[in-house]
């Protein structure tokens, strides 16, 4: 029995060796006719429609589900990958019969194709698979990839789409995760920590300012506070100004800027009543996004 098997394998191998010098000539590609092209087209369209429909339905469901929004959206990329893999499988078996010979020939051609022109595309696809399984971010997260910040709207096979606060859609190739650090503000959670910096004159009453900022934070309509989502208010002293920093979690990461604006506006209204002044020296831009605006106001 074992001998018979061994002789079979040896036979196959010698066939392969014989076939290799003239691989292309012997590739038993099925006759490509109108029917086959229509069939492939049909599979591609079905796969595309199915993946679009699934992600559309799941996105819609996730929007209605409230707090567990991101738990639904995280399975979308995985389903998409599955659909495209199945489609690819059907296309391949429609074109060639998958025997060892063809597989070797196919992989040879495939390797050459990657080597020549498709290496970036292939790297993006591998990046997409890594994103799906390693989950450095998920659909719905607030992320910074390179210098782009925004909400992840879609994780595709080739690229990730991010919607920036300015409502621009940025396509970031999936390969980027290998080359650049990726920051996720909430890591799958719907609440996200927000840092709010206010700068006051060094002669102003910092203790009173801290109390006001704390109250502005905890009474905000956007805040969430619990043991899991704590808040804090900190003071830092600089030569020409004092910085009051509040850290708290916003209830829904889409309301990040409304939260910042509401807390800042109410805190400054109270600061003015209590005679707390802005500093005469404006801290350099970039210290905090909202800082320079506050001081100018």
């Amino acid at each position, binding site marked *: 029995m074992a001998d018979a098997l061994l002789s079979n394998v040896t036979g196959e191998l010698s066939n392969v060796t014989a076939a290799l010098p003239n691989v292309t000539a012997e590739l038993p590609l099925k006759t490509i006719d109108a029917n086959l092209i229509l069939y492939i087209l049909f599979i591609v369209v079905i796969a595309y429609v199915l993946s679009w429909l699934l992600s559309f*339905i799941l996105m819609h469901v996730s929007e209605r589900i*409230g707090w567990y929004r991101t738990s639904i959206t995280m399975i979308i990329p995985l389903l998409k990958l599955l659909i495209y893999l199945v489609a690819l499988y059907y296309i391949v078996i429609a074109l060639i019969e998958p025997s060892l010979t063809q597989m070797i020939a196919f992989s040879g051609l495939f390797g050459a194709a990657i080597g020549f022109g498709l290496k970036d595309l292939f790297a993006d696809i591998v990046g997409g698979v890594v994103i799906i399984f390693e989950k450095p971010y998920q659909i719905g997260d607030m992320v910074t990839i390179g210098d782009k910040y925004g909400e992840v709207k879609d994780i595709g096979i080739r690229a990730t789409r991010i919607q920036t606060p300015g409502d621009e859609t940025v396509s970031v190739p999936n390969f980027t995760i290998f080359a650049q650090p990726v920051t996720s503000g909430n890591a799958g959670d719907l609440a996200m920590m927000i840092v709010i910096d206010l700068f006051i004159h060094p002669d102003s009453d910092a203790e009173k300012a801290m109390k006001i900022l704390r109250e502005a934070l905890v009474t905000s309509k956007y805040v969430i506070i619990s043991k899991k989502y704590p808040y804090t208010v900190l003071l830092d002293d600089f030569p020409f100004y004092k910085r009051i920093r509040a850290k708290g979690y916003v209830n829904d990461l889409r309301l990040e800027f409304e939260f910042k604006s509401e807390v800042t506006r*109410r805190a400054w209204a109270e600061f003015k009543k209590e005679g707390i002044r802005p500093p005469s020296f404006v801290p350099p831009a970039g210290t905090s996004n909202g800082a320079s605006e506050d001081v100018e106001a």
Partner: protein
Amino acid sequence: MAEDQRTVSGCPVIGLEKELQKITEAIDRVGSGAPAHIAIVSEPMGGRTTIVTEIRRIYGERVHYLPLEFVISPSCLPDFSTIPEDIILIDNCRFLALRRMGGFEVLDAFLHAQISSKKLFITTWNAFAWQYLSAVMNLDAYFPTIVTLDKMDTPVLKQMILSRYKPGEIRFFDDGAAQRSMFFSLIHKKIRLPLMANEISLPWIKLNFTVMLRRLPRKKRIQISIEDVIFEKINRIARGNPGVAILLWESSLKENTMSLASIHETPYAIDLDTNETFILTIILSMKSLHEKDLDAIAGSEMDIQRVLYRLVQQGLARDDTGYYSIPPFALGPAIEYLKKTKRLW
């Protein structure tokens, strides 16, 4: 001690015996050191008044009772050291704080007075106000004994409601609503599809577990009376809230006869924006709040009139001469919605 337990077991606080015992034990433990103050926490209509009445009945003259009716100013806080009684029972402590800038001063002053006093403070809190204040001000650190009144189970609810009547006074009428049910009943569910503006009606299969239990083989059969089915329905609609369940019972009872078909559930389709959910959360955690307090909480950024109109229009709030509260039957749906959107932590 044994005498106290007897008093407790004989009192009319059905379903809250364990909680009352915990409170009486905490009161009896008070020695010469710092007293272990007590907080009684429950959802609106969750049974705080029953407990408070019972404490006042048991401890009588030892208790100084101080119910708060509205949001109080710092000057309204009494001087506790002049009160002769050794137990100070403050009802509705949610009115000590308001979720607005400068709204925590009274609570700060009260907590300071409480921890520097030798008297025992018993306070009652709305569960949602308590959750918020615990997260923000670490309120639970001031109260070594926290008694939470939980949701009520159907058998306890049945016992509580029926204890108000003489045996046989209430007739349970089997109108066949339970009998007609099959294992699976075909119902028509209204469903809103993503791409369509209007709701469509889809046939839906509903499993009927009560009937399934009845149809078990004779040996395993569980006897379910019509009473149990009725109380199960009342408790499901009231979501375990005893106050809401009693109201539902009273509104469904006709000439001392109760039938399954007379219990109606009000449907709510809640659709609110951030401002509306925020104001609903505030009304829920205060139970009842005057428009001017709501206006102060809303601030200049929010059009409070529009928000209140929307809440009243959706049946989630009602206006009693300027005081806004949540109608009892809307409590359950409103709490579910606010928990789903994480407005209640």
